[in-house]
């Protein structure tokens, strides 16, 4: 799934360059970025570029892992075996996406243990969308349609990110993500076209609850974005938060018509002059509240992650003990 414009970390001052040699290296690096040459793990890169990527990629990885929880909530209660197998496959994909991304972040010199410790201690951020609850079965389809849809909008430009290991992970992820969005839309469409009135009401309720948080996934407005300009310069972020958000709104309006649901925004209307849909103001106070830890499910999500990690400790220990025993045997033989 799911990077939300991950520039919600603290603003950091770039360190002054230390030496003429470093300045020359940075000039060469900038020239490579300008020429569109991908940067690989062992290439020289400015410390701040590395730090920005570690933060963004690890936050993205955490989002995939935490993102399994809201939908995992419905695996045992999926209405049919078909929907259950689809949901299982999707949640497994999210785990896979987390693993691709942790590996990409590790190429920059951070370790898996450091990243997990940061997540489990609450120090690291993940996409705030997962701090909302999944109250009905329609939430699963709505997450696929809107949340994965927003994620795809965000992620497709990342397949051209200047840092190649991240870009390659994103290619794999985007390929799989399309299934996530389509299964969600199809599930909602089935309920809207063949369901009962109660099911249609349930779908509308889910859309009402997920619409605004989905728009927040694109991150703060460009004017307030802390890392936007530098990330654009470095080819990490190719399209601005507001431009992606607009593209998403325009796409969703048509899709909502096909579904037969209403998007919960009275200000939403086509603007002929702009060639885009206007939409109402986003409650950024809510966004920052949820990012800051005070969303409906922040504590529940983190507790679930820590519990899973702690309760899996014996499995990890056993696997290592087994590996050591066999290594010792082979040495002895």
């Amino acid at each position, binding site marked *: 799934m799911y990077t939300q414009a991950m520039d919600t970390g603290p603003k950091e001052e770039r360190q002054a360059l230390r030496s003429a040699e470093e300045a020359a290296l940075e000039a060469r690096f900038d020239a490579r970025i300008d020429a569109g040459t991908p940067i690989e793990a062992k290439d020289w890169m400015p410390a701040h570029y590395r730090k920005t990527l570690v933060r963004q990629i690890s936050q993205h990885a955490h989002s995939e892992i935490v993102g399994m929880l809201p939908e995992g909530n419905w695996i045992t209660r999926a209405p049919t075996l078909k929907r259950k197998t689809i949901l299982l496959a999707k949640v497994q*994909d999210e785990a*896979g996406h987390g693993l691709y991304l942790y*590996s990409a972040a590790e190429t920059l010199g951070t370790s898996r243990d450091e990243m997990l410790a940061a997540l489990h201690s609450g120090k690291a951020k993940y996409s705030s969308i997962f701090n909302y609850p999944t109250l009905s079965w329609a939430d699963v389809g709505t997450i696929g349609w809107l949340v994965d849809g927003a994620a795809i909008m965000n992620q497709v430009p990342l397949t051209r990110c200047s840092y190649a290991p991240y870009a*390659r*992970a994103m290619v794999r992820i985007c390929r799989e993500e399309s299934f996530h969005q389509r299964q969600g839309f199809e599930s909602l469409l089935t309920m809207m076209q063949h369901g009962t009135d109660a099911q249609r009401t349930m779908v509308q309720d889910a859309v009402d609850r997920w619409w605004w948080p989905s728009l927040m996934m694109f991150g703060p407005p460009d004017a307030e974005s802390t890392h936007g300009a530098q990330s654009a310069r470095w080819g990490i972020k190719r399209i601005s938060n507001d431009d992606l958000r607009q593209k998403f709104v325009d796409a969703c309006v048509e899709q909502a018509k096909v579904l037969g649901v209403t998007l919960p925004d009275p200000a939403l209307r086509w603007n002929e002059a702009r060639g885009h849909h206007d939409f109402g103001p986003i409650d950024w106070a809510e966004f920052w509240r949820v990012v800051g830890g005070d969303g409906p499910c922040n504590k529940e999500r983190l507790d679930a992650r820590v519990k899973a990690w702690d309760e899996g400790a014996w499995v990890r220990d056993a696997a290592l003990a*087994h*590996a050591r025993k066999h290594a010792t045997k082979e040495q002895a033989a």
Partner: protein
Amino acid sequence: MSEPTRNDWPLYEVFIRPKAGLDHKHCGSLHAPDAALALQLAREVYTRRQEGCSVWVVPSSQITASDPGDKDMYFDPAEDKVYRHPSFYTLPQAVDHL
């Protein structure tokens, strides 16, 4: 390889053969306690949609790689050897399928 500590499973590079007759191609990496589990995990992480019919896993620490700083020195000498390519040779049309 150094002995892995409690939480630190060693890193393996994963190579997948997409279908019979093709080369194995690097597709990513993962952590695993040993090679047997690395294979198992590689199947789960990298071949959920029939992306492969064969997997290799190699401890990352066992790979020797060229230095990106040496890239020009290593690879540029081939740049001016156009005579190594068949298109360098102009032949009469009658035998141009050579």
